[in-house]
């Protein structure tokens, strides 16, 4: 029996937020990722299918989609691991506006990244001597824990707090804030605590931990947000003490 003889029933979201799922028959191959399946549809069945990808090796964070209701990086997920009874459902990322088909509008995600204080402010220039940073120091350890984030928005799509609270900055932006807060070479560390203490800030997190469960790079935004809560609370007592 050849693998090519098998077909998968792949239903794919079409249109904007008022769209619907459309089912395609896609030949099954060995070593086939979800992104391969989506690409097959676009190349052989319907060239108008819109989706987003770039690196195909899990570095750029472009290709995240909802797969059977779970946010996933599609270039690094084998279709075999998600197919149920020969079928799979692929949709645009949750909690973001849909532009068309599988392409979600990432603007709110990146706007919140900036709003949480996520833009790096260097503490020195190229003319200053390089200050050594101990890679094993406690602050650097906290910072290093979050730097492998690829901005794929899987955590943002997984978070029910984002779903219920449109102002909430979300796991990725807050983890970025925690990373910079612990970065000795970031020049705006105190203003981060203010940036994450507003109405959409870290204090809205309910620690349900879907961010940490679904992060494809196995990062732990939930604990990073807990760190922000701890520091803002300490600051709260310090200001009054």
């Amino acid at each position, binding site marked *: 029996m050849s693998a090519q003889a098998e077909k998968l029933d792949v239903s794919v979201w079409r249109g904007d937020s008022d769209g619907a799922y459309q089912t395609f028959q896609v030949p099954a191959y060995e070593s086939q990722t979800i992104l391969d399946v989506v690409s097959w549809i676009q190349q052989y069945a319907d060239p108008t299918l819109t989706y987003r990808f770039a690196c195909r090796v899990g570095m750029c964070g472009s290709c995240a989609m*909802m797969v*059977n*209701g*779970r*946010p996933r990086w599609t270039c690094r997920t084998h279709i075999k691991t998600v197919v149920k009874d020969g079928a799979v459902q692929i*949709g645009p990322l*949750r909690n973001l506006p849909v532009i068309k088909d599988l392409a979600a509008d990432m603007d709110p995600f990146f706007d919140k990244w900036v709003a949480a204080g996520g833009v790096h402010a260097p503490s020195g220039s190229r003319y200053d001597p390089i200050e050594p940073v101990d890679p094993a120091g406690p602050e650097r350890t906290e910072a290093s824990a979050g730097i492998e984030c690829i901005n794929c928005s899987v955590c943002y*799509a*997984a978070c*029910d707090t984002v779903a219920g609270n449109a102002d909430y900055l979300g796991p990725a932006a807050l983890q970025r804030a925690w990373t910079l807060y612990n970065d000795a070479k970031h020049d705006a560390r105190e203003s981060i605590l203010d940036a994450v203490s507003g109405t959409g800030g870290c204090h809205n997190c*309910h*620690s*349900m*931990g*879907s961010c940490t*469960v*679904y992060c494809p790079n196995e990062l732990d935004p*939930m*604990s990073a947000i*807990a760190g922000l*809560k*701890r520091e803002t*609370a300490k600051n709260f007592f310090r200001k009054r003490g």
Partner: protein
Amino acid sequence: MRPSRAHPLWLAFVLHRVSGVALALFLPVHFWVLSYALTQPEKLDRFLSFADQPLVKIAEFGLVFLLAVHLAGGLRLMAMEWLPWSGPQKSLAAGAVGAALLLSGAFFLQVISV
């Protein structure tokens, strides 16, 4: 489209939210009944004898469980947020439910032993 979220910490969150709402709805009733102590003590006694029925006792067990699980779950959250140490959260969440069952179970054994 909703992600499948039934992982342990998400369930712990749902339990905390549901128990919180239930306790908040129960509180006014609880306060109302206790106020009878001042105005009509015989009404309070009548209520307490109504509470002797087996079904009501099971409901009381449920309430004590909700209170205990909201307490234990809340302590777990605050430990995670405020202590520099962060243990295995799944085990701690399970431990919170266990502690709540232990407390409410002790209460239940007392009310049914009457």
